[in-house]
């Protein structure tokens, strides 16, 4: 429990921030707490928050994946291309998910086997995957997908709750169990804390990293398909720039950029904070760029504030000693 205490403290802090934001929003607008607004709030960023779950694994493992948004774009455009070629949509979905796994394996191979830094490899594939997406659809837009595909993205599946939100919930539970309750999850932390030690402890760290990047590719491809279903059309610039929003959410959730620390619960709370904050700002007519700026301030604050507390705590016993 003593190890968990600082974590509980951090999550407690996030929870307090979240409650404050929700209270402020509810006071600002009577529309805020309605079910349709709450679902809408998730729907608008559903692809980002799904990818944030798997990004948590990547960053805890002391790596980074900048290529997620380009993979979302590639998968969405590949779906559009397959659709145009007359491939059965269900088969096309399977192929797109395969592209995700393959792209992730490509990243993983250069990172785990060649030993290149993930920042550089995924920066290159950020450009490269996006490039492939553009090759597939060029400067056209593809739309006219089957009715059921669009419904899956836009309409409620269980009552008013859409498929994507259910997928998010299921994925969260599954990944939570994987990270917090299994050996695979523990290995993710150990490798993130110190890869050399993990190697000496007999963990196949290369294989582990490969799997994590393949997971990242798969989930990103899935999120890209959700985007195609929700918007009903794909273009070469689908999801462009999403990677930074995703990474911001994960870091705000208290996941250490140096790896080895953080939790999916933190990421979930950060997701809720960002979504509610953006929704609240939209309710009072604050536009996109400013919203992103406020989230940026929150990100710096979230790292600075606990640090100030810690240094104050550290100083006190020294004074008593002298």
């Amino acid at each position, binding site marked *: 429990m003593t190890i968990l205490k600082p974590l509980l403290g951090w999550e407690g802090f996030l929870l307090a921030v979240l409650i404050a934001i929700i209270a402020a929003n509810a006071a600002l607008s009577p529309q805020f707490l309605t079910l349709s607004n709450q679902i809408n709030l998730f729907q608008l960023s559903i692809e980002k928050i799904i990818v944030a779950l798997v990004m948590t694994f990547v960053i805890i493992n002391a790596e*980074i994946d*900048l290529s997620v948004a380009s993979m979302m774009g590639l998968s969405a455009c590949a779906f559009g291309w397959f659709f145009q070629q007359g491939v059965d949509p269900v088969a096309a979905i399977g192929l797109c998910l395969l592209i995700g796994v393959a792209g992730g394996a490509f990243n993983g191979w*250069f990172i785990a086997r*060649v*030993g*290149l*830094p993930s*920042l*550089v*490899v995924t*920066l*290159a*594939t*950020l*450009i*490269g*995957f*996006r*490039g*492939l997406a*553009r*090759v597939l659809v*060029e*400067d056209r837009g593809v739309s006219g997908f089957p009715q059921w595909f669009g419904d899956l993205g836009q309409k409620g599946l269980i009552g008013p709750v859409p498929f994507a939100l259910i997928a998010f919930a299921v994925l969260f539970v599954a990944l939570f169990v994987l990270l917090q309750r299994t050996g695979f999850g523990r290995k993710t932390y150990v490798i993130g804390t110190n890869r050399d030690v993990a190697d000496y402890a007999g963990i196949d760290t290369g294989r582990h990293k490969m799997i994590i990047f393949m997971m990242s590719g798969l989930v990103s491809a899935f999120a890209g398909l959700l985007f195609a279903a929700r918007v009903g059309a794909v273009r*070469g610039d689908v999801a462009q720039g999403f990677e*930074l929003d995703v*990474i*911001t959410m994960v*870091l705000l959730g208290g996941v250490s*950029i*140096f790896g080895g620390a953080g939790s999916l619960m933190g990421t979930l709370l950060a997701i809720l904070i960002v979504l509610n904050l953006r929704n609240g700002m939209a309710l009072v007519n604050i*536009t996109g*760029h*400013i*919203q*992103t*700026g*406020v*989230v*940026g*301030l929150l*990100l*710096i604050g979230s*790292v*600075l504030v606990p*640090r100030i507390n810690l240094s104050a705590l550290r100083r006190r016993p020294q004074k008593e000693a002298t």
Partner: protein
Amino acid sequence: MLDRLSPQNLRILALFVVLGLVLAFFATQVDNYFNARLFNRISASVAIMALIATAQTLVILTRNIDLSIGSVVGFTAFATGAMVAANPGISPLLLVAYAMAVGAGFGVVNGLLVAYARVPAIIVTLATMAIFRSLLVEFADGKSITSQKLPAWLTDYPNTVLFSLAGVEFRAAFMTSVVVVALVHLALTRLRPARKLYAVGSNPEAAEMAGINQRAVVFTAFVLAGALAGLGGFMFLARFGNITVVAGLGFELKSVAAAVVGGVNIFGGSGTVAGALIGAILVDLIDTSLVRWPLVSEFWREAVLGALILTAVAVDAILMRRLIAWRLRREKARNAARAAAEAQA
């Protein structure tokens, strides 16, 4: 030669070879490839990118990264445009100083947070990328800068031909950039204070033990990078004239790409500004040439660029490992031979 040249110089040599190969390749593929327009187009774009890649290199050398650089370029381009539109009579030098000061101001914010508040650079600059951009949106207040509002000397500046060599025109903006980059390169290789960037990037603890004020060095790197990005913003304004709130979007990753292709180690401590310049030229050359290559559609540009970056880094890493292993073996053999000779004597 292989055992004498430093890895830095070897890399620059290799980059020149690659540059030559790319030129030779496209010359066989594209009719009338070598014309004045090719040089002009690339030099106009490199004039901006070289400054930004240099700024990014300074920060990366100290084991940090600056993702806010695109927003700084956008803000300074807009603010400088607004300044000159309000005071058309302002002296050019003062305007450049203003651009660099605004950029340096943003660098101070980043530097304070990274060096003194000890927040990781990737977090700080990810956040300030968004914050500086939203400041620009506030500052712009829905307006944009148009080239009609700018004085003629400013919009003429990038196209002023300083001198021409065998039909190739060397224009003012490009030459300014090259001179600035050359000065930074000379400083980084010859000046003792500038070498501290490498010391801190190679091993922060060792640098601290050697009496280097690590925080001050990191702080300075961010401020200088901000000032260079500000100069980049000035160039951006001069070249495009029309500035909106999305100016400079995506420059942060382009600058990292140019630096990395140019052999700058993303973990700090090694790399040169000259390499980053050639990296910027190489990226731009391929970008421009692919458009004119009839064999592939222009939509392949980004895919090829991604592959190029990955190949450059992978080949660099593998060759460097081999080179180091080869030099070690050679040295061992030489020592063994010397020991044997001494034993005989």
